[in-house]
């Protein structure tokens, strides 16, 4: 087994670890770091549930190896809300618009929307909805997710 030392920053905290080369970033975040909000839905990059933000970009953590994240800055869904518990605007929009049911796909949806709206960006609803076509939700029929995306784009839903 190949072993590698990595340093990553996850949700503002430095993580040092010695890991196998084949360990996925998703498993590393869930098992080694304890961020179980990273949900593995398909492990082949289609469903989007495992999406996290790596160096500012939305990434499917099932398709990336943990060693590839060495030196990176990672945010998971646990790292979005304020320390006082106030929800991130994406989380609040999802809550207001009843955009979740079972909540399994939700962290991935939230992270993609958060990545596209970070640093005050205000993409169009077309951009956000295009990105949402890469997330599978089996419960909601996407009605609330669509409304939340439009709200984040500044449109009245």
């Amino acid at each position, binding site marked *: 087994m190949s072993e590698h030392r990595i340093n990553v920053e996850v949700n503002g905290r430095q993580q040092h670890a010695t890991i196998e080369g084949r360990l996925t970033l998703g498993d590393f975040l*869930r098992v080694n770091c304890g961020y*179980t909000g990273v949900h593995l839905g398909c492990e082949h990059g289609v*469903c989007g549930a495992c999406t996290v933000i790596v160096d500012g970009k939305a990434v499917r953590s099932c398709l990336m190896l943990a060693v590839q994240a060495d030196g990176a800055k990672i945010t998971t869904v646990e790292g979005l809300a304020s320390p006082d518990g106030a*929800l991130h605007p994406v*989380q609040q929009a999802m*809550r207001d618009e009843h955009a979740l049911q079972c909540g399994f*796909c939700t962290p991935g949806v939230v992270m993609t929307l958060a990545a596209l709206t970070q640093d005050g960006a205000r993409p169009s609803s077309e951009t956000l909805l295009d990105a949402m076509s890469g997330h599978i939700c089996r419960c909601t*029929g996407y009605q*609330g997710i669509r409304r939340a995306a439009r709200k984040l784009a500044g449109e009245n839903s």
Partner: protein
Amino acid sequence: MSAPGTGAARYIGQRVPRKEDARLLTGRGQFVDDVAVPGMLHIAFARSPIARGRIVSIDTSAARDLPGVHAVFTYEDIKDQQADFLSFYLAPIEVRVTPLADGRVAHVGDPVALVVAQDRYVAEDAVSLIEVAYEEEDPVVTLDDARNNPSIHPDAESNIAADMGDEDIDDNLQALLDNAPHLITHKVIHQRISQSPMETRGVVAVPEGPEELTVYITCQSPHAVARWLSLVLGMPQGSIRVIAKDVGGSFGLKNHPWREETSAILAARKLGRPIKWIEDRLENLTAANQAREQEMTLRVAFDAEAKLVASHGDYSVNNGAYPLGADANIAVHMFIWPAYKMPAYSFLSRGWYTNTIGLAAYRGPWAMESLARETALDAAARKIGVDPIEIRRRNLISLKDQPATSGLGVYVDDITPAECLEKLLQNFDVAAFRAEQAAARKEGRYLGLGIATYIEPTGAAGSISVMTGELAQLRIEPTGKVTAMMSTHSQGHGTQTTMAQVIADRLGVPYDDVTVFEGDSSRGGYTPGAAGSRQGVIGGGAAIKASELLADKVKRLAAHLLNANTESIRIEAGMVHVEGAPEMSRTLRSIAETAYGEPDKLPQDFEAGLEAQYRYTPPPVTFTSAAHACVVEVDIDTGFVKIQRWISSEDCGTVIHPAVVEGQIAGGLAQAIGTVLLEEMSFDDRGNPTAATYKDYMLPAISDVPTFEFLHANTPSKSVGGIRGVGEGGAIIGPPTLVNAIADALSQFGELPVDLPLTPSKLLDFIEGRPVRKPKEAKRAPPTPASPPPSAPQPAAAAAPSATAVSADGDWAMTIHSQMGAQEMKARFSTEGGRLTGKLMSDQGDQEFEGRAAGDTVAWEMKVTKPVSLTLKYDLKIEGDKLSGKVKMGIFGTSKVTGERL
């Protein structure tokens, strides 16, 4: 719905923020894979790469030697532990099912061995080192294969897993069909579906010493799982604690554990170590139980005015190898016509075994009835030349036609599909659409309108023993806050929210002060779980009744403490008021503190504390009605379907939470869109699944699903609270609505075959005049001495007399092995020549009969009136002091009979 006695703020009917969302949006939910227990090991399964064959040898030595591997188990290693598999109804499974394959494999993905290792990576490494030698046999894959080949199971007579209805169509019905002015024969093919919850199956089994067990499992009810496991494993139910806090969807897949979950539990008990198994998506798509794969030929006869005259349905469903209970789906026939004025209906229904993954439920398991009926009505309307709306208006049962009872005994007195249809039409201008459609057609654009109506049985309880009521246990804590232990369980349903709304509303406390606990079998129970759109109806009723009991208790105590009449006490927003005396108001907290801590101040005979519980059993069934419309455009160059508009007009009684109700309908409709346009689980000729990823099995994405419009009618039901179930409706009415729209768009090309999914390539075949489905030759086994010919179920009188007669005379202990469990009785036979007289004696009463005796066989018919009127046809064979045979129970199918001489 009765008015609340509290005059409190109304929460029922409000779009309150969901209780579940705070944790689920922040990554703090607890799904089964989020559970970690000290010392926990991990499992991976070695699975069969062939669909049918004998296991010649299994070599696990290399796997065992891999560092990090703790154990490798085959069936031989765990067979010492009890694992008597049961169906959802807690009835024995009709064919032998073992946790791991015992000598034979019956489908690709059949679990053959398991590896227990330090982590899943090592477990999978070890699985790849297990060498299994198979002697492969030709698999039985399709329904046609099943009909034309000997039994795939050594312990089953034929591939018929279950059958119901009549093989021979009644002469009167045949005459009605033959003589009607219009008869259509409508065939519907429904593909196999993967339920595909976003969270796959999984379990963490934690043995607590040899006698106790904690099981974290993703499921539809921890209570139902605990009950199932206690019977399957032979452990007292109280010794098994099942926990399922958050579940990532289920849709019928996770009704109860099956082979892998049970194997993991047995392995954990064997090793005395906590063990986790999390199904990966490859396993979920290629080895988890699946659904549908049905065919139905529906014949419908109409008079000259397009009014229904008679109908016959012939239904088949592929049960796979190890279904979660053999299924011929009686509900398809029960619910196909009771919303319509249908004078006569009969059917033949069969479930077949094949070498494919076993059948499980999927949202609206009987949905085929709406698909077949509603698409048949549109096909008939086109053939007869009436409008599809008009054909429904002439035949639907409206409120003024009720009460009414269908031919199969379904009683309705408050269904509103006709009224939902009229409401829909008030909100959709059909004439304007037809004009737009005609104009578009001139431009070479193909628009279509689909309309469908239906009723759905929800909230069933009491008619089947596992379909219990639901329990609500409420407590006002000394702080004045309210906690509730509910037997409901959410896999996305939001029952922590809706039950809290009901309680806050009926108790008179702020919504934020109510916390609902569910998801743990050690709190409350019994329930079958989230099955059959029941939780709102029954859980809601239980929460209302318990809240009312508790409110009465508060009022009684407050009246005593405040020296007022009980009738003058009101509870509002967590405060207790005396009518007309605002200075007397107290907080609920102060009343609660007294109730628990100051027994001297309580009224005589007042049980200390503020607690109440109620187990609510509703009317046997509560119907939900709906009418839907959708508009599509079909691109005839590409075969792509674009859904332009979709309107739902449904009547689900009292709406607790509009966003939850709409979420349930929308989720079902998205699944309907997947069913009609995208999803297909199929197998090649050797039984290999051809969809192993979500690139092959296409789930609907946001771009496939339009924005739905909702119209709510709210006819209160007769259940407490007036609620009607809404969990499955979208998945039932959605498919025919969409198929009808596509068929309408393409009507100039002929009658569109209903062969799901209607993929672009199939639609192009249809548009361009090619056959939509290439005929496939069913595999037929060569007649060899080793394989006996397929045995059809034998008609009652066909038993051949044997040479040496054995006397049947005397008393017998007899058992009928039905799908709902075993029924014990005593039989007395007396034969004279070819004549048989006798008597059956059971705790249901005694009944005499007359019949025929020939050689070693006895056969007779007897009429019974419970649960419905039907004729039982017995056909038994006597061998010494044992008897065996069958009883045909009309629509309830054929059951095995065994007995011993007393």
